[in-house]
């Protein structure tokens, strides 16, 4: 009688390829995974509780640090949610909406570049990592020009943007999106046709459409299982209904499909950014809602009314009507949702963040059951998780 013993291995919180502090307890039978249990919570900072003690304006920087690889996306979701709660969504100026879409798509490219870099590095192709981070430096330069910070930009405000675009920004963005498709072709040349890459990604981490919807998977991972759902097209926000872009879907549901789909999404983002640049016109960048939006800085420094106005908004904040809303946006990793409850005071009564990576990670155990140890790493990479978002 043979006793089959499984070996329990701890892919601990400190590991080169778990994309943050994720702990996976794997039960291995040889090299095959029998059971996988993810443990999260090592990066829990209590963002939701912190937000309850800050006014709506002051809770905005907390959202930068959720998915720190796509900070402007988190900002966008939050300001859209607060604007919906206030009911001022229609008062947003056109220029602010176009710039928001442009920066959101640049952020999508940024997030997908990190995804490709770490995914390729996990599977062993180290050079792609360096190439992607070189492009990411160009995006960080754009972020720095527009907001002053490379990563946690905190550029959007409730009612529009904090500042208008700096001079020459549009030329920089144009240079970036002209160069980007060439770079994406370089990555494809290194990986897509490579027989080793294909053997490592085809058929790995498969999930069917029904299982994906049931487990709550969203974003590119869901679209590659054949479900045609993109919040930018289906529940548009910030003027997305005016842009012409394709929603990338695939039928296979395995890692290779998710890889090609995210590369195509990067190309589509370049097209959307081009449309934004064409659509950009002069105009205000903050809505004309005095009890919410801060006055322009030069007025604050010269006029007493503007100073009092700014003082009141910064110290007291604004008080929305009691009520609750849910705003979901298509973040690079999936559906990022903000559920805000207002009780009529200046602080949010409850801010619940629905992180896409948190729900996507739930799908991991069923995707790697019966797979080999090397495939576990590939699957974590293809789900594109970031622990800042999962743990909040």
């Amino acid at each position, binding site marked *: 009688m043979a006793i089959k013993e499984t070996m329990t291995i701890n892919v601990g919180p400190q590991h080169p390829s778990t994309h943050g502090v994720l702990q996976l307890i794997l039960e291995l039978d040889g090299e095959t995974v029998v059971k996988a249990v993810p443990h999260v919570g090592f990066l829990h900072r209590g963002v939701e509780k912190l937000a309850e003690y800050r006014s709506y304006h002051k809770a905005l920087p907390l959202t930068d640090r959720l998915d720190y690889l796509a900070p402007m996306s988190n900002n966008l979701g939050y300001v859209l949610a607060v604007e919906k709660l206030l009911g001022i969504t229609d008062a947003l100026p056109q220029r602010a909406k176009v710039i928001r879409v442009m920066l959101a798509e640049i952020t999508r490219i940024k997030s997908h570049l990190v995804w490709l870099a770490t995914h390729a590095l996990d599977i062993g192709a180290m050079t792609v990592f360096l190439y992607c981070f070189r492009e990411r430096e160009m995006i960080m330069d754009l972020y720095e020009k527009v907001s002053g910070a490379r990563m946690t930009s905190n550029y959007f405000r409730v009612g529009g943007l904090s500042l208008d675009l700096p001079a020459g920004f549009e030329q920089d963005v144009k240079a970036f999106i002209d160069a980007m498709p060439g770079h994406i072709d370089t990555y494809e040349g290194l990986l897509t046709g490579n027989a080793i890459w294909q053997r490592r990604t085809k058929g790995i981490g498969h999930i069917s459409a029904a299982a994906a919807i*049931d487990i709550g998977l969203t974003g590119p991972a869901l679209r590659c299982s054949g479900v045609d759902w993109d919040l930018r097209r289906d529940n548009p926000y910030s003027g997305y209904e005016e842009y012409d872009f394709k929603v990338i879907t695939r039928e296979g549901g395995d890692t290779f499909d998710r890889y090609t789909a995210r590369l195509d999404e990067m190309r589509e983002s370049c097209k959307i950014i081009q449309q934004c640049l064409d659509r950009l016109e002069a105009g205000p960048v903050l809505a004309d809602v005095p009890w919410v939006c801060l006055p322009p800085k030069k007025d604050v420094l010269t006029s007493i009314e503007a100073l009092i106005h700014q003082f009141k908004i910064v110290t007291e904040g604004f008080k929305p009507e009691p009520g609750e809303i849910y705003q979901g946006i298509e973040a690079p990793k999936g559906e990022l949702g903000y559920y805000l409850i207002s009780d009529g005071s200046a602080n949010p009564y409850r801010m619940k963040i629905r992180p896409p990576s948190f729900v996507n990670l*739930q799908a991991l155990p069923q995707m790697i059951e019966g797979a080999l140890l090397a495939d576990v790493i590939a699957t974590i990479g293809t789900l594109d998780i970031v622990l800042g978002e999962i743990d909040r």
Partner: protein
Amino acid sequence: MSQAVVAKLKQEYPAAVVDVVEHRGETTVTVKKEDIVTVCTYLKNEAGYNFLCDLCGVDYLGVEPRFMVVYNLYNIATKERLRLKAAVTEQNCCIDTVTGVWSTANWHERECWDMFGIRFNHHPDLRRILMPADWVGYPLRKDYPLQGPDRQPYQGRLS
């Protein structure tokens, strides 16, 4: 339209629906916690709300019932949202799990248990998810200190 769905829901389960609120174009239906699984099953199978976006708890300290469990639903085919709420009292702080309806509720309910202490009956694996396994207390409750159980409160101004 969400109103049509709500109307049909009220027709099917008139005793379960406690309240319907519309705010900023979103519909919120408050149901009794005993009927949550039947209502969810009905909404998933009959009304097509096959996607559970979010499940969370809210602590209304000072109001009876103290907790609310909120379910944000989405219909992928018609692209509509709906919100369900179920009140949970502090004395009987438990509600049935909906993991049988949508498996995604698993981790959301664990987080709700971890943060609020709302127990989910028949949950396959109810344990803490964000806090360490041996933590005492439920951090997101309104009477839990912001700075944690063993520190002095921050003396400066937060807001």
